[in-house]
């Protein structure tokens, strides 16, 4: 029965990963708007030609996200 020590520790680590995923999702802005994504799933995929502009999407997002945080914490 002493294996329960190990099991509980592993269980906590495993669920801790989910907690970390939650942190990431909140930081990624997924909880800022919970209604519009439900509409967006019905849209067609964007044609690939359009998205290869100067920077990739994610690079712009992190840049602007940091900037917004700085601006709004005044």
């Amino acid at each position: 029965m002493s294996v329960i020590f190990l099991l509980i520790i592993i269980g906590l680590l495993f669920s801790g990963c989910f907690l970390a995923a939650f942190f990431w999702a909140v930081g990624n802005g997924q909880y800022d708007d919970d209604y519009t994504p439900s509409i967006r799933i019905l849209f067609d995929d964007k044609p690939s030609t359009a998205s290869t502009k100067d920077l990739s999407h994610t690079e712009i997002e992190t840049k602007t996200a940091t900037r917004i945080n700085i601006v709004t914490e005044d």
Partner: protein
Amino acid sequence: MSNAKRTSCVQCDLPCREDAVAIDGQHFCCSGCATIYRIINEGDTNPAYLEDIQLSRAGSSDTYSFLDDEEMQLQLLSYRDDNHALINLSIPRIHCSSCVWLLENVYRMETGIISSNVQLMRRKVSIRYNPKATSLRRIIELLSSLGYAPELTPVDQKQRTPAQNRTLLLQLGVAGFCFGNMMLLSFPEYLSGTENVSANFRNFFGYVSIFLSLPVLFFSAKDFFRRAVNGLRHRRITIDVPLSLGMIAFYIRSLYDILTASGMGFMDSFAGLVFLLLIGRWLQERTYGALAFERDYQSFFPISVTRIEQDGSKTIPLFRLKPGDRILVRQNELIPADAVLMAGDAKIDFSFVTGESAPQRYEVGAHVYAGGRQTGTTIELQITREVSQSYLTQLWNEQPFRQPKHPLSNFADRVSGIFTIAILLIAIVSALYWLPIDVVIALNAFSSVLIIACPCALALSSPFALGQAQRLLGQYRLFLKNPGVVETLAGISHIVFDKTGTLTHSKETKAEYQRICGETAEEAISLAVAAAKLSAHPLSRSIAALGSSSIREAMSFEEIAGNGIKARVEKRTIRIGSAEFTGAKTSNSETVSYLKIDNQIVGYFTFRQAYRTGMRGMFNLLLPSYSLSLLSGDNAAEETNLRNIMGGAAALHFMQSPKDKLNYIGRLQENESVLMLGDGLNDAGALKQSSCGIAVAEDVHSFVPACDAIMNADELQSLPKFLKLAKHTLTIIKMNLGISLAYNLVGLSFAIQGTLSPLICAVLMPLSSISVIFLASSGVHLSAKYLGFDSEKMQAQASSISEPAKSYLPTGAAA
């Protein structure tokens, strides 16, 4: 004409409003729907169509040329570097999923745009673009030509930052995670019955619980401690004080028990408590993100003006306007600063600013004040004072605007003062009782009392009851800034009304016909209605409302802006308009529209203010319970009518300046709690000064001055019902206090004997919390039903008013 306006969008079936898009005789509610319809109809599944859209840009017009100004851009943009810029725009026109689709595809219509993101509930779009490839001006022109002209205001409204909301969510997540795990770890102890859990396991579970409780204490619960300390520093005991006291007692006692192996500790109840309290806190922060409750005059004034320069006129940002500049103000535009009239036909409507209902005429050379709206044709003005120094904006230097309105202490806070003292007394007394007998039991009793008396239930009943009330009122289109406003409404004793625009329709009037000669009144009215039906001018609509059964049709129609309309009906020429337009001789300065049939002036229409429906009934219901006042910026012409419906005891005051209104409310507040209902800038001071200020608006997304709640003007007649619901909600909160005290007594009976075990605590606390939550929510819901709130009917109505039905539900605020 009124029939045509009730059509439904061909694409999405929502009703079309006045600004519907019409293509080839088909009506769409927005250009988003129109575009999707064409794409589907032309069988084009690969929408390269969007790239081919030849939009008629307002290219030749320089309406947006002020956006080329660098400083203007800095004020509007959220982010800017050499290659990327980000702008957040508020577009009230966004209302359906087609709007979202179209606006998120603008990157295909303009090469410099990288991407865009719409928040439907907040009616905002965030556009990322490359400033080297396109400019802010071109983007805004594109949006405008699509029918989505943005509302441009440089001033940031004071909303909660996204960072603050995210922190609350994270705290909630951590508390829930730790609570769930700790609960599971406590089960062996609770379920072991007569056998004891082996010491090894028990210690292990204890230490893991301590480990899990650390983030709860230091991260999730930190705001409670912070607020308690802040409150005590200002000598106020809020609900956070007994809560913090209880939490500390929980923690220290549990640490002691676990480390000395004398018990399981109460960690799981502690985490559960924090978890539930954070849910309550999340509820308290709910607001309506699409509405702005904090606007000042800067949001009212236009963002740009047309200045006359040597080589023509140019649109410049408002902040560049200086005394001595000459500007043009066109029909329906606002006068941005105190000025002198240089040229043009000035008929200025000050109803939003001073409350005077009739537009004023001005001669060349006269002074005109900022904030008025020009109803005639283009005039030329010379600015005399800076925008921020005008007569109107001086109001914002008054005291109430300098500091945030401090909320009246709410019920839970008032109770917590007595509560804390009582609990401390009981704890000390029971400790002293046990001290001579056994020190350990004394300490046990002391900490147990503090633990079990932690007012979790009390702290939860307010957010849930008030949150439920806020939601219900939102469905009836009274949008509260936060749930706390419900409590303020429950304590109101005196109600003050504004007249123009609040009790009366702001644009609609009642037309009355006076015959002079010629055709009979019925005949004349019938002909006039046939012509007036085709005009969108408010006065024409009032005339058209006189004859709903008219079957006459006009053969030709012409509208001459600012002067009148001309039409041919059954071979007769009908002219309706001002005295100059029709050639009538008059010395009257009132708003009168003359009716001319075939070159003979047969009569005229006068326009009276139309009171909103249900005003008499509303006052009848309010009279028994409230003192009433009226503060109007208009003259006393309506005094008898108002006296009639408001009763003899009401205080009626006319010709009130914005400052007069503010002072009047200040005087009232020495003895009473005042509710103010107003709509315009002239009420801004009063709304700020009052205990609760409700802005009445025909379009809740349009500008309203800073207030605690925004009410759709059609619902004004339901005010008595709203106030009753607020009162009932407060009663329910008080009843819940009784219930939570009952739980506390049961728990205390164990605590003072020193026999409080973690199991009892773990059962009692969640039980009390959940029963209070349930009673609060369902109590308010039942009370609403009893008062006549029909939520299903309102839901159905909501989805038929071109709005996503969810917009009547408050959400957590975020940018």
